[in-house]
């Protein structure tokens, strides 16, 4: 509790560090903030070309929205995952990237990874805003669902922050972590139904049935992945325009809270040793 109070007291510092990231990020570029759109846009083009045009993956049309556009369907899952992956990777490096500060000034170190959540989140907010405009143009009726979208975005941010806290500490002690995680993130993305619908996994899973004589199917194992739930909720809200599946939504909240608590605990325990370990 005392720790949380100290963190709360540093919120102004957190805001300032976040602003530093945001302002410093696109300085001296001609397109400025537009650059944050380029990355997801480029991935969208490539994935759409390969998976919709060449391999012919066909996700179901949005129900009840009636949308049937692969690129938009893709973005509803791709943008949240890109945010998650960026927060984890940048947050992980935030302690190492600020050695000068950590070794010379005392402040609540937790603001370093958290400020990355803020700055990456700012870009994400911008991207999601553009996505909403695109959805509206395509004829989706998203307005009533936006409050829930914001809640889910917050949950995902909490989840990503928790993971970033754990990995930031790990990265100080073992520099391998950052290389390891960038590979994990790639694998993780392909193990989440972002560029293909989960129905394809279900089909395969049905074919094999229960594994090793139990009733556990491939799909059950596949769905342990918390990002699968997050992506599902985002699609239900944005692409289908309907209430999210309560089980999915609840699991998102539980995962977020659990991981964040573990992250906080790990970070708090090792915070004092960080300056020495660097």
């Amino acid at each position, binding site marked *: 509790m005392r720790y949380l109070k100290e963190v709360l007291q540093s919120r102004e510092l957190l805001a*300032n560090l976040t602003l530093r990231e945001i302002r410093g990020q696109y300085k001296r570029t001609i397109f400025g903030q537009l650059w944050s759109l380029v990355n997801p846009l480029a991935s969208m083009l490539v994935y759409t070309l390969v998976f919709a045009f060449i391999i012919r993956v066909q996700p179901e049309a949005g129900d009840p929205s009636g949308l049937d556009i692969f690129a938009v369907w893709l973005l509803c899952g791709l943008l949240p995952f890109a945010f998650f992956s960026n927060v984890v990777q940048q947050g992980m490096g935030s302690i190492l990237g600020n050695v000068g500060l950590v070794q010379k000034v*005392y402040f609540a170190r937790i603001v370093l990874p958290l400020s990355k959540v803020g700055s990456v989140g700012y870009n994400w907010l911008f991207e999601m805003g553009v996505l909403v405009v695109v959805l509206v143009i395509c004829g989706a009726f998203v307005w009533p669902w936006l409050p829930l979208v914001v809640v889910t975005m917050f949950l995902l941010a909490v989840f990503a922050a928790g993971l970033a806290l754990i990995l930031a500490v790990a990265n100080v002690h073992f520099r*391998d972590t950052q290389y390891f995680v960038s590979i994990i993130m790639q694998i993780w993305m392909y193990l989440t139904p972002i560029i293909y619908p989960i129905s394809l996994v279900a089909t395969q899973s049905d074919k094999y049935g229960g594994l090793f004589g139990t009733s556990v199917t491939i799909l059950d194992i596949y769905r342990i992945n918390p990002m699968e739930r997050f992506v599902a909720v985002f699609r239900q809200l944005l692409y289908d325009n309907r209430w999210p599946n309560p089980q999915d939504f609840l699991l998102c909240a539980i995962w977020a809270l659990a991981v964040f608590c573990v992250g906080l605990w790990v970070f708090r325990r090792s915070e004092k040793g960080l300056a020495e370990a660097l």
Partner: protein
Amino acid sequence: MEIEHVSKKFRLYHERNQSIKSAIMRGRRSVHEDFWALKDVGFEVPVGSTFGLIGSNGSGKSTLLKCLAKIYYPETGRITYNGKIAALLEVGSGFHPELSGRENIFLNGSILGMSKKEITGKFDEIVNFSGVEQFIDQPVKNYSSGMYVRLGFSVAINVNPDILVVDEVLAVGDTEFQAKCAQKFVDFKNEGRTVILVSHSMESVREMCDSAAWLSHGELVKVGPADETITAYLESLPGASAA
């Protein structure tokens, strides 16, 4: 401020496990020996005094300062104090080169623990003290190194702590700026604040400090009035008779 039996241990690694591979291969045991940078150091710093820490290189002065600044945590012993503490171990840490001087003042101030309101209130004072008014809206990467340090120092000195911990940053800027800094420390003292500083310049310690502590190889050798401690320290040095 009281420092009681403070000891600080560092591990000197012969073979360090800084990668997962080596940690696993060696079964998580890394080879190290302990090095005690501070051994059972204890003294008291009276409120409102200026206190100097002297000693040769590697005697543990900076380690002690970092313990005071809560950057390192001692293995044993306690450090207790009343009021707000601020450490000036390096100036301008946390400046973002692409941001303007103005933005950096707010950023650096909040890193040092000031609220936005405090910084706004002190803004003019900070800028005046640094003497970079003309360039305040320029990115700090275009500053000369002197301007950079002066701005950093001005922010730090305006944090207004009850206890200020300073590590040899007095030697920044030109003569004029140094005089300003010295004046600021005198003001600090007159306001009843405590200053703890580390310096190799015996003249400045003699001039500014009421009392001093002499550290050698992590151990406290002598603590007392500044003059006596400095004399004892200088006499211990080889070739002291000549000086």
